[in-house]
């Protein structure tokens, strides 16, 4: 039985060991090379990823608070892979950064929290891991220490996230008061229809989740924080942390609040509608590329919520599939932006005019990523959105699909606007040819393969679907 613990929690254990190791290194020596820290972390993350695909245990520990199975492992693998890509991309920025070890410690702490969160089957476990994945992020957002806006972003993040967890906690406390238990399974069976307090609890918990995945109207913090944070943190926030919370959201919605399915369906539909439309409207007029991607990611969440509204295995699979695709596409875009920002400090969309002239490879990378985000076939984003809309249409809300399609058209406008800036527009001050180090190059290749491959490889969706079952 003792070994069982280690095997069931191998993701979490490796990450925890890495954190410990980094702490020891940091404490032990003042002068340690950033490269070493990064390499150690990347190596261990890779090991965890490989192990995650090989060892696929299933079972419960901690008195059924922690549950793992193939689906959870897949989700953790996705997150670890995404973190690895981000870590590779950040190397340009971290190379001369004084707090590399701390950066990794905090980053991995949040990853650890997310892994626990995915596996949690108890509200206490869930709350702890949620906080573990949020609080270090606020510190991370502040990591451009000398920048005013960085600390402003961190402040906004910590205040609003503390408030949102306050709301969620209130909801959890009401749930406890009415059901007498906090375990997901028992809550699900104890929950009753038409109990005002439980409804209240549900709305509060929903608000907490809505905040984390930045669904309208709980999205306002997103853009400010994204713009202010270092690029690596922004990409982490927009992809990994959002993905992790969405995974848990699936569990909570489909399992714990299964009884309310017929009514949360309508709530989700309306929220997804607002999220798509408002995300798009905001994105249209942005000039800062990070802020622009923040809003575009909000509208992507709207699409994800459409898929979620189906409430079936299909919709769970489509959401997970989309997140995989979304990780590759968004990280592809952020990788280029991180490189440009790290080397030139430029992050306005206008700065990208004539980018293609000197940086062919980076331009294609960004172009492909944006096409995927816009959902243009044959890149993966199209299939991702296609499956989302398909599962959303299962309940017959065809008008919703129509609105989503219109939103895709609107989003096309601003994505292609960036593409136009890169490929067509001319500028006297276009960005010079940028040297690409080996790590970002690897990350970029992974992203391209991911974006193209996950679209063309039809087995992926089927694989996810089988795991969901």
């Amino acid at each position, binding site marked *: 039985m003792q070994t069982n613990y280690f095997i069931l929690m191998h993701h979490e254990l490796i990450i925890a060991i890495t954190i410990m190791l980094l702490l020891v290194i940091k404490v032990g020596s003042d002068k340690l090379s950033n490269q070493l820290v990064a390499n150690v972390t990347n190596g261990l993350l890779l090991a965890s990823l490989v192990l995650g695909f090989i060892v696929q245990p299933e079972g419960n520990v901690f008195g059924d608070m922690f549950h793992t199975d193939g689906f959870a492992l897949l989700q953790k693998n996705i997150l670890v892979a995404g973190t690895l890509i981000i870590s590779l991309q950040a190397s340009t920025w971290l190379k001369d950064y004084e707090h590399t070890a701390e950066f990794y410690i905090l980053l991995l702490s949040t990853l650890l929290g997310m892994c626990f969160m995915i596996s949690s089957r108890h509200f206490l476990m869930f709350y702890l891991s949620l*906080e573990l994945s949020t609080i270090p992020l606020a510190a991370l957002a502040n990591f451009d220490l000398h920048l005013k806006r960085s600390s402003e972003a961190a402040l906004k993040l910590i*205040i609003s996230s503390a408030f949102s967890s306050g709301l969620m*906690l209130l909801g959890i406390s009401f749930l406890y*008061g009415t059901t007498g238990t906090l375990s997901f399974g028992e809550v699900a069976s104890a929950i009753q229809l038409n109990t005002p307090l439980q409804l209240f609890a549900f709305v509060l918990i929903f608000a907490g989740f809505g905040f984390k995945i930045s669904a309208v109207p709980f999205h306002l913090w997103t853009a400010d924080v994204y713009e202010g944070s270092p690029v690596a943190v922004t990409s982490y926030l927009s992809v990994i942390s959002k993905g992790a919370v969405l995974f848990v959201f699936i569990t909570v919605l489909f399992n714990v609040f299964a009884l309310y399915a017929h009514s949360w369906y309508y709530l989700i539909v309306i929220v997804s509608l607002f999220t798509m439309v408002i995300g798009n409207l905001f994105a249209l007029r942005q000039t800062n590329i990070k802020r622009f991607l923040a809003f575009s990611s909000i509208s992507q969440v709207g699409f994800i919520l459409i898929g979620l509204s189906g409430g079936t295995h299909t919709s769970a699979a489509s959401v997970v599939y989309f997140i995989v695709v979304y990780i590759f596409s968004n990280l592809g875009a952020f990788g280029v932006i991180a490189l440009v920002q790290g080397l030139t400090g430029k992050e306005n969309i206008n700065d990208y005019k004539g980018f293609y002239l000197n940086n062919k490879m980076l331009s294609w990378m960004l172009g492909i990523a944006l096409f995927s985000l816009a959902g243009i076939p044959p890149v993966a984003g199209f299939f991702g959105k296609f499956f989302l809309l398909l599962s959303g249409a299962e309940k017959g809300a065809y008008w919703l699909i129509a609105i989503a399609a219109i939103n895709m058209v609107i989003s096309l406008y601003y994505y292609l606007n960036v593409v136009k800036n890169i490929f067509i527009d001319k500028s006297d001050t276009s960005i010079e040819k940028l040297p690409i180090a080996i790590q970002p190059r690897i990350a970029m290749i992974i992203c391209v393969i991911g974006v193209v491959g996950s679209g063309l490889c039809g087995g992926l969706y089927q694989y996810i679907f089988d795991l969901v079952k």
Partner: protein
Amino acid sequence: MSQTPLIQILFLSVGLFFIGMYGLLTRRNVITILMSIELILNSVNINFVAFNKYLYPHQLEGLFFTIFIITIAAAEAAVAIAIIINLYRSHHSVDVEDANELKW
């Protein structure tokens, strides 16, 4: 010995919650805002403890949750104060309304 009815304790907790919320929305000093958040969390703590004591006296889940919330709140406050210090360094102020460079 007569026990205080549950409903009164819940009123207390809700009152605390709204005091916290009021502080959060009206105060401009970041430290005060942080305190308001603590108030909100404490109202939740009261909820948990009360529910545990009155409705489910034979178990401890609520109490445990409370302890963890307190711990997390401490951690949160630590990080928040670190951020506030940093903010003060760059803005020379702890007023939230001064932190409005990022908008639109």
